[in-house]
Structure formats: C-alpha cells, structure tokens
C-alpha cells in the first residue's frame, strides 16, 4: 500500500563555474552535509541513497561507485538512475517510490554535475543517433524555439525574453546558492553575445558545478524529523520517442503533442486542477533558455499560444507576483545538469516551508509545481503541498 511521503531535508552547494578546490566527491558531500544538517539527521538515519548525473559530461563511469565516499552510501541500499536533464526529477520520483513502497523510511536523493570537468555540448551531442543524427546535432543551443517565437510575436518576443532574464537575475541576486547572481538590464540582455541566432548569451543557461540533495521520509518519520514537512502529492513522468528536436518543433499540433502538455494534463486530471495559474501557487520550471520558458509555460499552464507573454509583461511571474515562476533565479542562472531538476523540487519545497530566505515569495505558498526537462522533450512534474494529501 502506498504511504505518504514528505520532503524533510534540503541541501545544495553554492553553484559555480569553477570548483577547482574540490573534487566531485567533496562537492557532493557539501550538499549531503547541508541536507543532513537541514533535517537534523545523521548519515546513520538514512536507509537508502539514490544517485544521478550524466556520465559522459565528466567521463566517470558509474560515478556512484566512487561517490560512495561522499554521499554516505557505504553499507546502505541505493541505486543510480539517469535520464539526462530529467535525472534530478527521476531520482526525486524514485525517492518517493522507495518510501511509498514501505521498504524504506528515509531516503536521500543526490543529483550533481561538475561540468567544468568535461564539455557540455560534446556530451549533449553524443545523445543523437550515431548513424543518422549525430552529425546534425547542435547540442543544447538550438535556435528553433526562439525563431518560432519571433516568427509569431515579432519584437515583442525579444522584449519579453529580456524581461524573463531580468526577473531571473533579480531573483538569483537574492539566492545565495545561484550561479549567476548579477542583476542584468534590458540593454545588457539585448546586446549580449550572439550564440546562435537569435539566442544571445544572456538568454541561455550557464554550465555550472553543483550538487543538490533531498531527504524524503515516510509520514511517521517525517513527523518526528520536522515541523515543516513538505508533502509530495504526486509525480508524473512523460517521455517522448527519440527524434531530432527540429522534427518535433515543426508539428502543427505541437502544443497538444509536446510532453509538457501531456504531462501537465495527467497531473492536473489526477489532482483535480482545472486552472493551474490560479490553483497552484508557484512554479519552479526547468527552462534551459528564456525562450523555452516563454513557449513551454503555455503548454504547462494550458494557456493559448502567447498567453504566458502577457503574464510576464504584467509582472504576474515576478517574485512578488500572483504566480511566481523561478523565484530561485531558475535554470537560466544556475545549471549543474544532473542536479538542476532536483533543485527545482528543492526550491519549490523551500518556498512552501517559507525558508527560502531573501528570495521567499511574498504570497503564502500552499502548493507548488516543479518541472524537469531532458532527453528528447522528456518531462517530469512534481506537485508539492503544505497540507498533508
């Protein structure tokens, strides 16, 4: 029988471009120690350690083996789950599954990446089929989403892209763990280095080093560990078959067909949500570039195409708005890939707890949603709640 599952501990590193001062194990250990401290637990209280990242970024085969020294899995149960960008979401789902199964009471999910030790675009390009697609694969910086947004909304799209980046920079400046913490201006965004037309440097996420750890526990344990458990109400994973992103993006029915919308519809149906913007208090979204947030948010939130642009323009998604998006600063300011999706869940949980510090949103957060993106348009959604489900 399924048991209720709560997040009881959260830890992350100060995400940075350079961490020559630590090796992977030491970096992971920083987040593990922080999460244990947050939960007021010791490593002996943990039953199981789930580990994830993307192997070909750093070139360490099955790094969970080496990382035992830092993640505390010695003589514990555990496993390694990897699904690319969604990895952090997958290990959060797996942590939920482990506790809900009744076999484990306290489970730790460890997502990490140390991207300075490899080459991110090479790692991502190796995702494409070696026979058919690999020579065409561009890595993460693909201009199609931005191009279609500009096709449909013209200059307005570029203005909103800058607004999203300004908002993320403003939020990140308040988040001590964020990587790019500088506030940026419209002019800085508009004049930043062109990566791939029309994507500019400040539209795009950075390559970060960092780790994030989540400790989840059964209802019984959670009650003893914390006064502020954050409940995992539901999670939905939606993969898509492999193909070039460009092929996907040319579909006429993209909005209905994309995994973001399919995943969101499942989550909302199972949890009786009809108007997500009104019924969910906050959204931590995995947006590798501002353009993707602008397009995908329509799909996630069941909006008409371009509906989200208005929300941004009206300040609805600001930290003090009625539907804050990425109060942490989001992925555009911080992206240690294997940790990124887990950070979304962690940040959503911090907001529900009211423990986000300087980047705590103004409104009370009772329910929050966190998304993960990876692979060929794969999506995971987590729905968290303050109330026990």
């Amino acid at each position: 029988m399924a048991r209720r599952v709560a997040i009881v501990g959260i830890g992350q590193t100060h995400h940075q471009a350079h961490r020559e001062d630590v090796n992977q194990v030491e970096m992971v250990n920083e987040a593990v120690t922080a999460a244990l401290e947050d939960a007021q637990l010791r490593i002996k209280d943990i039953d199981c350690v789930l580990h994830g990242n993307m192997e070909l970024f750093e070139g360490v085969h099955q790094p969970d083996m080496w990382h035992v020294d830092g993640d505390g899995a010695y003589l514990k149960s555990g496993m390694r789950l990897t699904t690319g960008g969604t990895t952090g979401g997958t290990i959060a789902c797996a942590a939920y599954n482990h506790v809900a199964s009744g076999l484990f009471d306290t489970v730790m999910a460890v997502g990490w990446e140390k991207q300075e030790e490899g080459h991110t675009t090479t790692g991502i390009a190796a995702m494409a089929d070696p026979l058919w697609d690999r020579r065409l694969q561009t890595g993460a910086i693909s201009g199609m989403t931005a191009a279609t947004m500009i096709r449909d909304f013209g200059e307005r799209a570029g203005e909103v892209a800058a607004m999203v980046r300004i908002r993320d920079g403003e939020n990140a400046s308040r988040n001590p763990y964020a990587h790019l913490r500088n506030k940026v201006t419209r002019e800085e965004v508009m004049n930043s280095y062109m990566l791939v037309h029309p994507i500019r440097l400040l539209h795009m996420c950075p390559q970060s080093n960092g780790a994030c750890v989540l400790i989840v526990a059964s209802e019984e344990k959670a009650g003893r560990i914390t006064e502020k458990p954050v409940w995992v109400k539901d999670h939905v994973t939606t993969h898509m078959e492999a193909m070039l992103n460009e092929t996907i993006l040319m579909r006429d029915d993209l909005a209905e067909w994309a995994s973001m919308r399919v995943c969101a519809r499942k989550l909302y149906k199972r949890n009786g949500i009809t108007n997500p913007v009104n019924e969910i208090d906050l959204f931590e979204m995995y947006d590798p570039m501002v353009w993707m947030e602008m397009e995908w948010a329509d799909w996630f939130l069941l909006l008409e195409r371009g509906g989200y642009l208005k929300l941004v323009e009206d300040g609805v998604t600001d930290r003090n708005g009625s539907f804050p998006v990425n109060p942490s600063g989001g992925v555009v300011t911080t992206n240690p890939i294997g940790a990124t999706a887990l950070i979304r869940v962690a940040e959503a949980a911090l907001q529900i707890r009211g423990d986000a510090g300087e980047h705590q949103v103004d409104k009370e957060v009772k329910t929050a949603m966190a998304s993960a993106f990876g692979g060929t348009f794969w999506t995971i959604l987590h729905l968290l709640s303050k109330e026990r489900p």
Partner: protein
Amino acid sequence: MGQRVGIVAVAQTKYEGSKPALRLAELAHQPVREVLEQTGLKYTEDGTGIDFSICATDDFWDAMTLSDTPIGDVVGAHHRPAEKVSQDGAQAALYATIAILSGHYDVALVVAHCKESQPASRNLITSCAFCPVCTRILGVDYLSAAALQAKRYMYKYGITREQCAKVSVKSYKNAKNNPYAQNAMALTVGDVLSSRMLAYPISTLDAYPVSDGACAMILATEEKAKRLTDKPVWVNGVGNCYDCHHLGDRDLADSDALEMAAKRAYKMAGIKNPRREIDVAEISGQYSYQELMWSEGLGFCGKGEGGKLIDSRATEMGGKLPINPSGGVLPGNPMIVAGLTRVVECVLQLKGEAGARQVAKAKTALAHGTSGPCGQLHSVLILGI
C-alpha cells in the same frame, strides 16, 4: 504492505560474443517483443497495459549520452513514463518491485541490453569507474581489481586456483543445457589452469568472455499478476547494498555489502536458513573466484568455506543447492544485463520451464547481481511460487 509483486513474463536473447547485425534498439526489441506477446499487454495508460518502463543501460557501454533514448520506442516510452537504471539489470528488477509496491504503477516492463563487443576494450570502460584523482592513473580496471581481490581471498582463506577452476568447469558444463548460453564446453581443471593468463590468478577460462545480449521481464501487482498468468513468480524479498570504493578501504576477501544485501532480502522474504530454504541460486560471478566469495556472502557456507563448498559438489546440478544451472555469467553474459538474466533464469526454474537445466522441485530461488569493481554493489532478489 500486504502486497506482493509478481513476475508474469520473461525473455532473453541468445548471448553471443558479437551481434554485429543488430543495433541496440533491435537487440532490446527481441526480448521485449517476446514478453509483450506472452502477456498480450500493450503500452497503454488506461489501466489495462504496461504503465511504467525501466531500462537498464549505460552511457559508456552504449557510447551514447542518454543511452535509453534510442530504445524509447521499443519500450513504449512515448507520452508515457520511463526511467533508466544505469547499473546491473538486477537493480532494475529490484526497482520495478519497489515502484509497484509504491502504488504509483501497476505493471512495469524491465529491459536490459548491452553490447560489450562495441568498445575496443572492456577494460578501457571499467577503468573509467575508478577515481580519476587517485586510482585511475594506476591503470586499474575491473579485471585487474578482481585479480587483486582473488589473490587476497585465496591468501586469507587458503582457497586454491584449482577450487576456482572447478567453478569454471561446472559453469561451462551447465551451460551445455542452456540454449541461450554463449559458450558451453566440457573442460577439466587443467584446461582452466593452463588457459592464457589475463591477470594473475585469473586466466582466460576464469573470466567471462566479451558478450552481447538482452533480456526483459514484466512485473505486476499481485492482483494483475494473477490475471496475467497462471504461473506468477513472486518477488518475496529484495535487498541491495554498497561497499566502499577504494580497494584499500576494505578487506577484499570479505563481502560485507553482499552480507548486508542478503540480510535485507532474507528478512523481507522471511528466510532464516538460506542454505536449506533456497532451492536454486543464480549468482553473478564474472570471475570464477567470485562464485565462491559470493556464496559466502549469501550465507550458503561459512566465511572462507567457498572452496569447501565447491569441493563438496553441493552446488552442482543434482546437489543440495545448485548454483547457476544456466551456467551463470562465466560462459558469457554482458555487464548491465547479467543480473537481470539471473532473475530470468530463476523465474524459468520456478515455473518448471528451464528445460534440460531444470532443478527438480524448485520453489524458492535466489537471484544475485553486482555492479562496480570487486562487487562494490550487490543486489539480491528472493523469488518464490
């Protein structure tokens, strides 16, 4: 809990040293298609089909970031949930059990595939699993690490190369009864000892060959398992455990992690005396000494008694506790796949469908998988009918 998880279908390919005609997706598709046909299940989410897919694959072995991507369509991962365990396949079966017990999914497909023939060298890949700061530069890989472990094990407990060689002789002999086995032959201890030395004391016939293959299974809630098959095999216990990484941090002659993993699985399955209560075991030994060491870790004999166990012939076909009637990993099962193959073989034994390798009256079986160097991570599943 009060819930049980049942395995309702299993399939495997023949294991071969090289399968150049098959791309990874085609390889994975073979056992997947078979388990779909056996059950009549489809990839649906209306509660009538498979609602969760787990792949055991690995980015290094497949030379591909997100190695589950190319088999997405094979496992029905379109608009549906799928996850990847990038470890030995036994971990994937264990996770499927957990995912079903969680109540989040009812019916799960598990598939493991690997083509060890693709990389230029198996050791090149496993070398990358070692700490790049301290140990990788020494040139250590899973084979040379295993040689260190074998030497330490033999030294501490007086195990002989002959006793290890007996494991190879038994494995290759049993493999003759297994139509899926890669290599099967009649060997003598002398043949094993005189085969080409790879890393002392491991010679060619003490080590598993490069292998390609895939296997798959479908697991379901108790209620659905009973509807899907007349002969469900129940997962009565699961347990896994990590050991420390640096070889110098542990006494390589003892397998603390396996003892712990087994303890967890036995506790869940209510097994008090494994040697008596388990009818057949399929365990993952990539090198001959490992079957002896893992037998100790699993409690099939006392510490240091692995050599005596093989001498007693209790683990041969017809013995009290047959180990690896299929031949096990030594005649050839690829990494990532090997542990799931063990589960598949146990299911066949319990259903009485193991053909010439059938162990009579098998009611409780133990499947074991391992990942990492020198058995750093062990998974144990107790199956029953």
